[in-house]
C-alpha cells in the first residue's frame, strides 16, 4: 500500500478534514489503490516532456486586468453564515483565546 494510516492522518490535517479513527484504514486503502494505479506512469517514456499545467495556448496566461466592477459589501456578505457590522465573524484564530 502506498499510504499508511499515519499518512492519512497527516494529509487530512493539511487538508483541514476530519477522518474518524475507524475510517483511517479504509481511506488509506482507497487512496493507495489510486496511487498504486498511478505507478503506470513509470512505464511511460517521458523523455523531452516538459511539465504542462495548461494545454496550449492557455499555458500563456494573460495578466489580470481590473475591469472596475465590484461587489458591494452587502452583496459580498449576503451569503456569509455570520456577519456583524459589515464584517465576517470568525472564532478566535489562536486556540484558547476569548472571542
Amino acid at each position, binding site marked *: 500500500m502506498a499510504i499508511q494510516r499515519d499518512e492519512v492522518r497527516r494529509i487530512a490535517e493539511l487538508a483541514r478534514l476530519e477522518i474518524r479513527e475507524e475510517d483511517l484504514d479504509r481511506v488509506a486503502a482507497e487512496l493507495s489503490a489510486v496511487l498504486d494505479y498511478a505507478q503506470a*506512469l513509470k512505464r511511460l517514456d517521458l523523455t523531452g516532456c516538459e511539465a504542462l499545467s495548461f494545454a496550449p495556448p492557455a499555458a500563456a496566461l494573460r495578466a489580470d486586468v481590473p475591469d472596475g466592477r465590484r461587489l458591494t459589501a452587502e452583496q459580498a456578505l449576503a451569503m456569509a453564515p455570520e456577519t456583524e457590522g459589515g464584517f465576517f465573524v470568525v*472564532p478566535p484564530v489562536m486556540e484558547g483565546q476569548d472571542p
Partner: protein
Amino acid sequence: MTARELWRLPARALAAAVRAGECTAVEAVSAGWEGPAAIWERDVHAIAHSDTEARVVGAGVTPRGPLAGVPVVVKDNLCTRDYPTTCCSRMLAGYQPPYDATVVRLLREAGGVISGKGNMDEFAMGSSTEFSCYGPTRNPYDLVRVPGGSSGGPAAAVAYGLAPLGLGSDTGGSVRQPAAFCGVIGLKPTYGRLSRYGLVAFASSLDQVGIFGRHTGDVALIYALLAGPDPLDATSRPGPPPDVSGWDGGVEGVRFGWPANLWRAGVDAEVVAGLEEAATWLERAGAQRVPFDFLPGEYAVATYYLVATAEASSNLARFDGVRYGHRAAESPDLHALTTRSRSAGFGAEVQRRILLGTYALSAGYHDEYYLTAQRARARIRREYEAAFSRCDLLLMPVAPTLPFRLGEKLDDPLAMYLSDIFTLGANLAGIPGLSAPVTPAVGGLPRAVQLLGPDDGEGLLLRGARALEVQGERARLERAHEVEFAWPTKR
C-alpha cells in the same frame, strides 16, 4: 400550438414558433414541465432546483433572439442569479450567487430561459450522479441504471424531453459520458472556447462548459452563441471561435482514425458493435477509415486522477465556513471551524479527492506524483497531435460499458474512475470531443460513440455528428420499411 406539440420541437423550431407568435415564450418554456416532466421527473430526478416563477419571469424578459423562449437545463455548478447554485453539495446549501456565469448571461441575451438547475455529482466529482446531496438521478431509459455523470441531471432532462438543450461541465468526460448513457449529443468544446467565469471551479486547467442537445443543429446553434473570448476568464482562448455554420456539410473525404487497439480488451461487445456501426455509417457518408494504434487509456487515468485532484484540493480550499457555505456550530477556534465545516459539508467522494490531491502536492511527493503527471500530460498532448497529423477525427468509445446499475461502482472508487478511461485524454490535451448516439443496444439502452478533433475542431465534430444522425435516421427508416414491407406477406 399546444404543449403536446411544443415539447418535442428542436430548439430552432421552438424559437421560430415563439418569434412567429405561434406560442408565447411562457408556453414554450412550460411545455416540458407540463408534458414529459409530469410523467418522468419524479422517478428520474434530473432537476435539483426548479422555480415556476423564475421561469415565467425569464421567459418574459427576452422573448426575441435566436433562442427565443427556448428552455435550457443548466447544471447546478453554473452561477445563476435567480436560482440557487449549490454544486449539489451540503457545503453550498442555499447559496445564491450575486451574478450570472458568462454562458448563462449569453444564453439569456439570446432569448433562452433557464428551465431548472440540473442534478450532478457533488462538485462535479463522479461518473454516475450518485454523489449528489439531493439523491441520485436515474437513467430515463432504465430507472435501475445510472444516467452517467457528473452532469447526469441535464443529460437525463434533455433525454426525456424537459428541454431541448442543456449545459453541463466536462472536466474528464462529465458531459460526453452522461450524453452517451442518456442517448443525446454531448459536446465538450476546445479548452477555453466557452467561458469558465461563473462555473464553480473543480480542476481549472481541465474544466470546460459543455452542451447537451437532441439535434446536431441545436448544438451548433448554441455553441455559436456561447463560444468566444471572455475578459473575465484568464484562460479564455483568444481570437474568434471556430465557425460551425457548416455543421450539415457532410464528411466526404474526411479521414477518421480507428485506434482499435484501445478496445481489443476490457470493452463491452455492445460498445464495440456500436463503433463498427458508426464507422460503417461514416464510410457510407464518404469518410475514410485510418487504422492505427493509440496510447492506451490507463496513462490518461493515472495522469488525470493526480492532476485533477491536485487542482481540486487547491480550488476547494476556499470553502472554509467563513464567507459562504456550510459553517459548523460551536467551534472553539478558526482551525476547528474550518475543519469541522469542511468535514460536515463535503461528501465522501469530494473528501477522497481532496485528500488524494493534497497528498500528490505535499512535500516529498510533489515530484514523484504531481510533476510526473504534468510531464505525462505533455506526452498525452503530443500523442493527440501526432494522431491528428494522420487523420482529421478520432473515433473511439465514450465509456467501456453501457449504463451501469445504481450502486454498482459506489464502493470501488478506482472502478468508477476507470469508466472515464476514454474521455479523460481530451481534457488533458485541451482538445474538443463529442458523444453521438448510434443504434440502441439490445434491450433498448442508449449506445454512443465519441469523436475527438484537434484544437478548434468543433465544426468537424458537428459535421461528423450530423453524418451519424442522418445515417442513423436512414437506418431506422430502412428497418421500419422492412417491418412494414414484411408484414403483409406474413398474412
